[in-house]
């Protein structure tokens, strides 16, 4: 503890520095100019100026997903704060640690409809883990410390801190007192699994004849990938990941049977449907996983491990619920399995794997590439080759997102960065920029489409200012592919507002922002031009790839069906 006299604005910046914040992503405006002045006068924390506040939230989000550290956003009151709302909701749905510092008009003006006043605490209430309205100068350091603590413990999530202008201005100073050892009486996030439940879970798991491990984003946020891998290997069990959980175990691992759910692999969904025991780890039985809830795995005993009790038995009833941090609980499970001296029954296990391998042989994740237009799946495969499977892949939302999830096996956690819960178009580019800020030497790729990229394309300017040489791989199908796919399948092929007329020349656009643009029109130039793009290390390259606009994402769960009822291709059911 120090007792230096500081202004509120100085306190904000000092508090961030004390919490080891490297970057603030933000945009200045009237109510936060004092904070910007304080930022100007120091070197501990670097501010990154975006071109739209939504992009600041996604950049902070991408940074947080890649590093596990809290992403920090600074926005002014009114429109600055409301522009953050989509990014806050994105982080909330995917449990990403983020602190949004939002300016507010002076306390004396609050409620008067003052210039650039909005109730951002009210606006964001349903989409934050918690929020603070800081009304006193001396509280600033501890409120920020609490915000960080809440954002990055338990089930992580975004926290909004509202800072009225009158507590930031130079007229007032106070002693900087900050207690980093936060303790909140109503919030205890460090939860261990109940030992009785652990024993029950282990005896169920060890008696299973057809066990499936189903893991989600919780494994990523708990940094529990190694533990998960050893649990999988100890049990010799098949494992499937949710969209959020990809990379939780290496996509190249023999026991990995692919993503499950709407566009998951047939073997993953079949294994779930036929399992007698499902061990769910840090996953939440989202509707994009379960398909029709009433038909979901009726014969399985479900062991559900999650830090958030509200996720348990919300949509699917858990027979053995375990509330706890997934890394701690997995450790407990492994200890109990060892204590019981459990040995996998090879006959039973091999029978189960034999069945799974039959489903695998259907090769549900496949496509036909003829000499015509480039198939989008082929682009992702080439991308994997040219990056050796080591790039950070930040995705936008739509068909390209699903193709990336299906055709780019992620070897490591935090390598796959996408808006899984909210499905926010415009997420990809700023997220890839946040990743690049965190790891300048790593390859950071934004996989996007001609629809999504235009939702935050202004950030090409930020990329130039901060020299962020991300690679943009745009699967350009001249349409909103996923919307078009649903219209083809469900709406009689009526393409209502799903095609993009008057697209810009993306190459010239990239060039006008000071970057390099490469267009790929033909299959025979795909690999060569991609290699060319990735050979350029110090410049942003926008690769605009004209792909087959008629391609659909398969396999796909049949609407209102069971988890394993799927279309394998147009008109072909599994």
């Amino acid at each position, binding site marked *: 503890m120090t007792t230096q006299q500081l202004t509120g604005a100085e306190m904000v910046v000092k508090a961030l520095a004390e919490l080891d914040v490297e970057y603030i992503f933000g945009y200045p405006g009237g109510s936060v100019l004092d904070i910007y002045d304080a930022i100007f006068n120091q070197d501990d924390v670097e501010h990154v100026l975006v071109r739209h506040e939504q992009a600041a939230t996604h950049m902070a989000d991408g940074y947080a997903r890649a590093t596990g550290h809290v992403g920090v956003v600074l926005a002014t009151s009114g429109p600055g704060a409301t522009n953050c709302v989509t990014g806050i909701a994105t982080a909330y749905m995917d449990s990403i640690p983020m602190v949004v510092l939002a300016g507010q008009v002076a306390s004396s003006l609050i409620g008067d409809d003052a210039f650039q006043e909005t109730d951002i605490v009210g606006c964001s209430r*349903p989409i934050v883990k918690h929020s603070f309205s800081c009304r006193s100068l001396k509280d600033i350091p501890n409120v920020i410390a609490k915000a960080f603590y809440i954002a990055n413990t338990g089930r992580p999530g975004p926290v909004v801190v509202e800072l009225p202008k009158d507590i930031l201005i130079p007229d007032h100073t106070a002693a900087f007192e900050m207690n980093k050892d936060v303790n909140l*009486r*109503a919030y205890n996030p460090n939860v261990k699994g109940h030992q009785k439940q652990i024993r029950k879970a282990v005896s169920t798991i060890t008696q299973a004849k057809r066990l499936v491990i189903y893991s989600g984003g919780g494994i990523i946020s708990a940094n529990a990938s190694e533990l998960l891998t050893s649990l999988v290997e100890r049990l010799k069990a098949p494992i499937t990941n949710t969209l959020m959980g990809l990379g939780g175990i290496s996509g190249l691992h023999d026991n990995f049977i692919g993503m499950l759910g709407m566009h998951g692999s047939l073997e993953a969904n079949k294994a779930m449907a036929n399992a007698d025991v499902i061990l769910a780890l840090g996953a939440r039985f989202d509707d994009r996983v379960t398909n029709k809830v009433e038909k979901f795995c009726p014969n399985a005993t479900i062991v559900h491990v999650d830090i958030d009790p509200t996720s348990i038995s919300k949509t699917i009833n858990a027979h053995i619920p375990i509330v706890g941090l997934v890394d701690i609980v997995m450790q407990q499970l492994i200890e109990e399995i060892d204590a019981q001296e459990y040995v996998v029954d090879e006959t039973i296990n091999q029978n189960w794997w034999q069945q799974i391998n039959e489903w695998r042989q259907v090769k549900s994740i496949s496509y036909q590439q003829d000499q015509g237009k480039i198939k989008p799946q082929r682009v992702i495969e080439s991308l994997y080759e040219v990056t050796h499977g080591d790039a950070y892949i930040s995705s936008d939302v739509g068909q390209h997102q699903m193709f990336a999830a299906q055709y780019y096996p992620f070897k490591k956690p935090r390598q796959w960065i996408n808006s899984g819960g909210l499905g926010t178009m415009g997420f990809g580019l700023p997220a890839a920029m946040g990743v690049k800020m965190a790891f300048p030497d790593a390859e950071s790729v934004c996989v996007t489409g001609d629809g999504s990229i235009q939702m935050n394309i202004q950030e090409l300017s930020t990329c130039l200012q901060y020299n962020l040489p991300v690679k943009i791989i745009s699967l350009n199908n001249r349409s909103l592919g996923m919307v078009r796919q649903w219209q083809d399948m469900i709406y009689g092929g009526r393409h209502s507002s799903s095609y993009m007329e008057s697209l810009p020349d993306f190459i010239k656009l990239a060039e006008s922002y000071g970057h390099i643009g490469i267009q790929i029109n033909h299959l025979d130039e795909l690999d060569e031009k991609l290699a060319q793009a990735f050979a350029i290390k110090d410049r942003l390259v926008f690769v605009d790839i004209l792909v087959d606009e008629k391609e659909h994402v398969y396999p796909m769960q049949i609407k209102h069906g069971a988890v394993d009822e799927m279309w394998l291709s147009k008109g072909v059911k599994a």
Partner: protein
Amino acid sequence: MRRILAILLENEPGSLSRIVGLFSQRAFNIETLSVAPTEDASLSRITIVTKGDDRVLEQIVKQVNKLIDVIKITDLTERNHVERELLLVKVLAMTDKARTEVTRITEIFRGSIVDIGKQVYTIELTGDVEKINAFIGILANETEIIESVRSGTVGIARGEKALRI
């Protein structure tokens, strides 16, 4: 099924709106809500009467508990408890007959007349929901109800069980 939930939470700005917001956001029902600080001024206590089956109630309890401000929540319906509601009602009392009847009914229900105007009586009554409903029904038969206000239910567990830090 009708449920009475007792919630102990931080007495901070915004705490109540988080609870109310949660109920509307997740399409939970609020029949009555009553809130006030406790003897420890840093804490507020809320009683919410809601409706829902076991599954909905489990989600309500978990979702409320998840709020950072909430210290404890308990379902009073599950155990022996005392619940009360306060009614203030203003009725027309212009004739002798009406005045006599209103006074008699109030005495029977162990309410009290707390204010008298030229033409109106104001009555206070405490009780559970059934008693208050019955009282209002009978009053309405005898005279005209001008205005009424109910506090919403408050509740507390019987015996040693207590909702505290």
